């Protein structure tokens, strides 16, 4: 089989090549597994969570974690002020964080890629209109923009996703616009134009596959950012409303019991840290793999 000459082997796509380089780093791979583990936990929450996350049991009010006096193994991380199992609420809370993070990035990347491709390739008034809108949206600090929108529309899953996506799309848009501007001058795009390819064909089939790497890297970095933003909104009481468990609101709930029940705030915060840190390490690994110049 090895007799097949190298030139005859189908070339691997640049994305696959880069992913192979990413997998070579043990730390990045471990963190990718951690992120994947969180996703699996979130999806399988009803099967994995030991208790109903909203089931209150006032006899277990502020029960400590299993390894402390008064704790029990069935309630590993202890209970909150309403006697709800913290571990189960963290597992269910992962659903909110990951779902909102993924939904915002999906919506924002789709819009950003479309707008960035159009602005960078078509230029002219399309570019001017999109770029001005991007400049205006960049004029708002992110959290303040989201808070203002939610203040007006009210909290709720859909409103949070929209409030975050309304501003998030400008980031992939700027990246894609810049990459497209550079790509449209390259020979392969000129060749496609000379062969009579339509603008839509060139943008989708020629340019997009070649600029996917930076889009993937930016999406992962931004996902970590969006998860912290969602948790911040929930902490302020502007996120998903009770009794639905979300990590940010769990931390807020525990604030009143800092003195004698540290576990109520500590564990959900730790969950945010582990997930966000893992995503950040993964994104750094992806950036290093996709852009060797960044390996410093």
């Amino acid at each position, binding site marked *: 089989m090895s007799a097949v000459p190298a030139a005859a082997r189908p070339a691997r796509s640049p994305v696959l090549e880069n992913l192979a380089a990413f997998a070579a780093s043990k730390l990045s791979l471990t963190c990718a597994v951690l992120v994947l583990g969180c996703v699996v936990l979130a999806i399988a929450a009803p099967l994995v969570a030991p208790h109903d996350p909203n089931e209150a049991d006032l006899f277990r009010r502020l029960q400590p974690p299993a390894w402390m006096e008064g704790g029990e193994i069935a309630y590993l991380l202890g209970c909150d002020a309403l006697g709800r199992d913290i571990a189960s609420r963290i597992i269910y809370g992962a659903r909110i964080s990951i779902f909102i993070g993924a939904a915002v990035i999906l919506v924002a990347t789709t819009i950003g890629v479309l707008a960035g491709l159009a602005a960078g390739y078509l230029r002219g008034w399309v570019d001017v209109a999109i770029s001005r809108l991007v400049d205006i949206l960049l004029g*708002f600090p992110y959290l303040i923009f989201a808070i203002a929108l939610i203040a007006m529309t009210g909290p709720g899953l859909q409103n949070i996703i929209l409030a975050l996506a309304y501003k998030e799309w400008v980031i992939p848009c700027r990246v894609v616009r810049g990459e497209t501007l550079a790509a449209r001058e390259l020979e392969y795009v000129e060749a496609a134009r000379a062969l009579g390819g339509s603008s839509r064909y060139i943008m989708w089939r020629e340019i997009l596959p070649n600029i996917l790497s930076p889009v993937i890297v930016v999406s992962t970095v931004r996902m970590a950012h969006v998860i912290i933003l969602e948790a911040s909104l929930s902490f302020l009481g502007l996120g998903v409303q009770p009794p639905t468990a979300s990590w940010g609101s769990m931390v807020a709930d525990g604030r009143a019991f*800092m003195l004698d029940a540290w576990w109520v705030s500590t564990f959900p915060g730790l969950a945010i840290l582990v997930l966000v840190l893992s995503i950040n390490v993964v994104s750094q690994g992806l950036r290093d793999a996709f852009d060797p110049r960044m390996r410093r």
Partner: protein
Amino acid sequence: MSLGRLIERLAQLVPVLLGVSAIVFLMMALTPGDPVEIMLGDQHVTEEQERALRHDMGLDLPPHERFVKFLANAAQGNFGQSFFHRQPVMDVIASRLPATIELSLVALVLALATAIPLGVLAAVKKDSWLDRAATVTSLFGVSLPGFWFGILLLMLFAVHLQVLPVAGRAGYESEVAPITHLLLIDTLLRGRLDAFLDALSHIILPAVTLGLPMAAILTRVTRTSMLEVLDQDYVTFARAKGLRRRAVLAKHALKNALIPTVTVAAIETGSLLGGNMVVETVFGWPGLGRLVVESIFVRNYPLVQAAVLIYAITYVMLNFLADVLYTVLNPRVRL
């Protein structure tokens, strides 16, 4: 940078500021519910009075005229009455602004004071344990949710060790006559060391919480730019001339390596504004961020609108300042 280019760059801000104002206006206009009803609450008024109020607020005008009126009023700092405080919105905001500015400045100073030495050391001792420690710390810094980190600090220093106060800002405004309205500076200027130390003990935890993500980002930026500078020919030449390593670092490398740090610091100061809302809520800091969060819950929309516009204008101006700074510090770049 020439004056002409500066004016040109300033002119480019106009459409952005107009667009930002339009979005803030739209947010308010599209809010469900009648502003007059929200403002009146449970008060009973005649139809005549209600009409007069609607007219005063400009709600009987067509949307484009309302926008022009909003812009004209905003330019004069007139955002109407705060529903909740029963006084002009700008007065309420002005009373809370110094606390936020003071907190942001201390956070900025802390971030710069940590990030620059750490970033430089990490670059100079590349691949050492110190470099790795700086990288890991900065990775943690950008990944820590600020509100949680703040609570952890409170639990440790205020609750368990009891060496710092739990919440709030030192209450010396009534005792120390204001000069700058920034307590740390005013107490020093008035020679009240006891009050200064108290103010410092109150601000330290919120400032550390607010400054940490910024310090993390600035450490990375300083490290990367220092590494780039250390690779440059002029640094090699300075070393070849026989200058001492420390002199080369301080006189030749650092000056140029700090250009991106200063620029990013200016941009990141804008992002401190968002962090303020969370940190002020955690620490009960009586600043603008906490006021906005409180106002949202009591549907005090004129105040939210004014604050969002002020935040956005400050943010745009800080980004502009970052651009100008970058050009001034690095004459090879032209705006």
